[in-house]
């Protein structure tokens, strides 16, 4: 029982740390980043590089977000800038970006799996199964990340500026807010958090070029089910979908878990749709 709860909590926190970055980008900029899975993949590879150079895996949790964030700052002006608020174009262009990033990594590292070492092998025994402290650490990161973002959104000037831009970019720019800079920062921060997510999950899944695919649909389903621009909604849907997935996967197998994940996300979306439709029509 306790084991099941821990597994569910672990699934939820992994879902959250791999989704929050995407939610920031989508919520603030209206850009659908389908290359999200590749950003996670880059974070995982960053962790592989750092540890293979002989540094501590803990350091990679610092360097991975930095590297992916920097890359995002370079990509934003040449690609993402043309996609603000355009759903269809951003889906397609970032899809292309994903292809390019996968090919670049394949060119350098090949298609084989690279193991990333656990930062700590310590753990505790639970019903004769070794349970790593590292999974507890991921839960801690997820909680801290969620609290920090809620605090920034609600209690800081940065949060107010960001929400103003989300609400009405053209009005915000008239008020003297540099909308382009807000977008650039949102993309960089969102990508950096995604990079952190990739580095965090790297020891659990190992790094390979196509590793992002299994994460990207889950992340988007969480966002679609939780609604855009609402952190509590995101946390709620992560909890619901992550827990269900882990229970079904345990009872049956991960494929069934994946199918139930999709169906549940559609059900939640449909239940919420009436309310959102009205809100959207009002703002439009």
């Amino acid at each position, binding site marked *: 029982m306790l084991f099941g709860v821990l597994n569910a909590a672990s699934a939820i926190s992994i879902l959250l740390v791999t989704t929050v970055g995407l939610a920031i980008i989508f919520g603030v900029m209206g850009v*659908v980043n*389908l290359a999200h899975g590749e950003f996670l993949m880059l974070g995982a590879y960053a962790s592989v590089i750092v540890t293979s150079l002989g540094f501590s895996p803990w350091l990679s949790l610092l360097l991975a977000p930095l590297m992916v964030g920097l890359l995002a700052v370079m990509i934003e002006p040449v*690609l993402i800038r*043309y996609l603000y608020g355009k*759903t*269809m*174009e951003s*889906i*397609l*262009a970032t*899809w*292309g*970006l994903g*292809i*390019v990033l996968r*090919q*670049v990594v*394949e*060119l350098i590292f090949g298609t084989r799996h690279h193991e990333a070492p656990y930062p700590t092998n310590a753990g505790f025994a639970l019903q004769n199964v070794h349970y790593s402290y590292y999974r507890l650490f991921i839960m801690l990161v997820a909680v801290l990340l969620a609290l920090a973002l809620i605090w920034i959104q609600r209690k800081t000037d940065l949060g107010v500026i960001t929400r103003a831009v989300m609400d009405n970019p053209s009005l915000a720019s008239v008020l003297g807010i540099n909308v382009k800079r807000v977008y650039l920062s949102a993309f960089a921060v969102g990508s950096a958090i995604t990079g952190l997510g990739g580095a965090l999950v790297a020891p659990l899944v190992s790094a390979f070029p*196509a590793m992002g*695919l*299994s994460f*990207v*649909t889950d992340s*988007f*389903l969480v966002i*679609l089910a939780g609604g855009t621009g609402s952190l509590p909604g995101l946390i709620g849907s992560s909890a619901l979908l992550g827990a269900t997935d882990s229970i079904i996967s345990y009872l049956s*197998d991960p*494929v069934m878990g*994946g*199918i139930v994940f*999709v169906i549940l996300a*559609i059900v939640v*979306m*449909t239940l*919420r*749709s*009436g309310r*959102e*439709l*009205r*809100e959207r*029509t*009002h703002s439009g």
Partner: protein
Amino acid sequence: MKIKRIINENPALLFAVAGLIAPFFLSDYVVGDILVKAMIFGLLAVSLDLAWGYTGILSLGHAAFFGFGAYLMGIVLLNWSSPFTMPVAIIIGILGPTLLAALVGLVLFYTKTSELYIAVFTLSLSILFPQLLLRVPQWTGGLNGLSGIPLFPFSVKEKYYFVFSIVIVVIFVLFKIVRSDFGRLLIAVRDNEDRIRSLGFNTAFIRLIAFTLSGAVSGFASVLFPPQNGFISHSLPGFVTSTNAIVWTAIGGRGTLVGPFLGTVLINWISPLLNAQFPHLWQLFLGLIFIAVIIVFPGGIYSLVLRFFPVLKKFSLIPRAFTSRSEEMCVLAIKDLKVGYGSLEVLRGINYEVRSKQLQCLIGPNGAGKSTLVGAISGNIAPSAGQVLFGGIPLQRKSPQFITRKGLARTFQTANLFDTLTVGENILLATYRGNLPSIFHQTNCIQVPESVNRIIELSGLQDKLSIPASLLGHGERKWLELILVLCTEPRMVLLDEPTAGLTTAERIEVGALLKELTQEAGLGLLLIEHDIDFVKSIAQEIAVLVDGIIIASGSVEQVVNNPKVNELYLGDIRS
């Protein structure tokens, strides 16, 4: 001369001729292996183009349909032997993807639908489907796939011409469809879903038809694949094939059918050479081309070809009588209608009546809730309480297309058109009044009601029937939207600021015309307006909406002299 005209209208014929003679100039390996396989994938791209390029449904998992059919066919061929095996395998291989597409379409278009939602759902399909196949290895062979499928019993050239002729037939039939009135409707759904719903069409159903058709075309591709390849693996329905199909379609030129096909054949032809020369780099380069096409060159390669063959569609208008559905008096009754967003109440209980043969105006300051009221009546916004009765039929919480089909139409504050369609096609679709048009027939003589024809002449649009709506000026767009709405032959129209942005001269014309419509066609009109002088000159009745409440209504005289109205709204004008 006639040949020249035919080629000008169908430049694809030039490529068909090239395809016909190609086997005589190329090696057997290129013809029998590379080109045949490329043409099969080309059909997959064509099916994706029907969904994405024409109807705007971006499917990131189209290979699932393709692979599903191939697996079904392979399973039948390997597990059953009888004289009927082949025809049954072909039928099942085509029906399977068709039904799967219909099922996916039902889920996608009848729940909460959006571009992102469709993309994410189809993406999960392409990731989950191969995993599902691995779960039933007794049927699918698991990781080993299905091998030993009987190959085409043809020589190289026979095989080429067999597949080639199927391609020609499929593309020819699809050409008939996308150039028919139904095809124009698909483009209209892609361009502007709100408007097409407000013209009375059921967009979910139209998309479902298009997507199912697209699944069927994938089915044609999937039954050609196993006898060509002899082997199917679980990665065929997966992510890589789906991604490739999108890249091929985009680079070839979406929304042209021929473009995606040619793009696929070309890329599959040169890819083996370039992959051998530059491993990885070629795929990387394709990815970069794809991004470039999306951002700076959305028409793809084939749009360059089409540039040399401009087609000018000519339309003629045939006036006919306005088939007024009923001579009886018809009343739109709004009873205690409320709209709220959370704690904010925008409409706080509206009671009002609009009658046919009347021109009534609704005025009020900015933010009073005027557009919200129109939206709540027309089904674009769900009211939180209250009733809307039109000729006794309750309309609250009904869809926009239902309301339009009952004879209550609306215009939008900013003109809402189908931008890539011509003016003539815009008008044509409106005259269908929400009924499904023919899937093969292409209409060029549009029957429009007599009074609408006069508006078209007055607006000067009869000379512009062949140009795309996106090239119209602001005033012309307003005219065209009014024309579209009137073509649905409504009994009552809600006009959201029809004269905003028009010149004074145009306003006077519009005003006279609207008055005439109420007299001759028996229409009931409710105008939302800001310009009080314009309102005074045309309205028979005025209502004043302030802060979500109608504070006064009645004849022009009564309302203008109402002290409450002067205090809250008009006061500043008169002083």
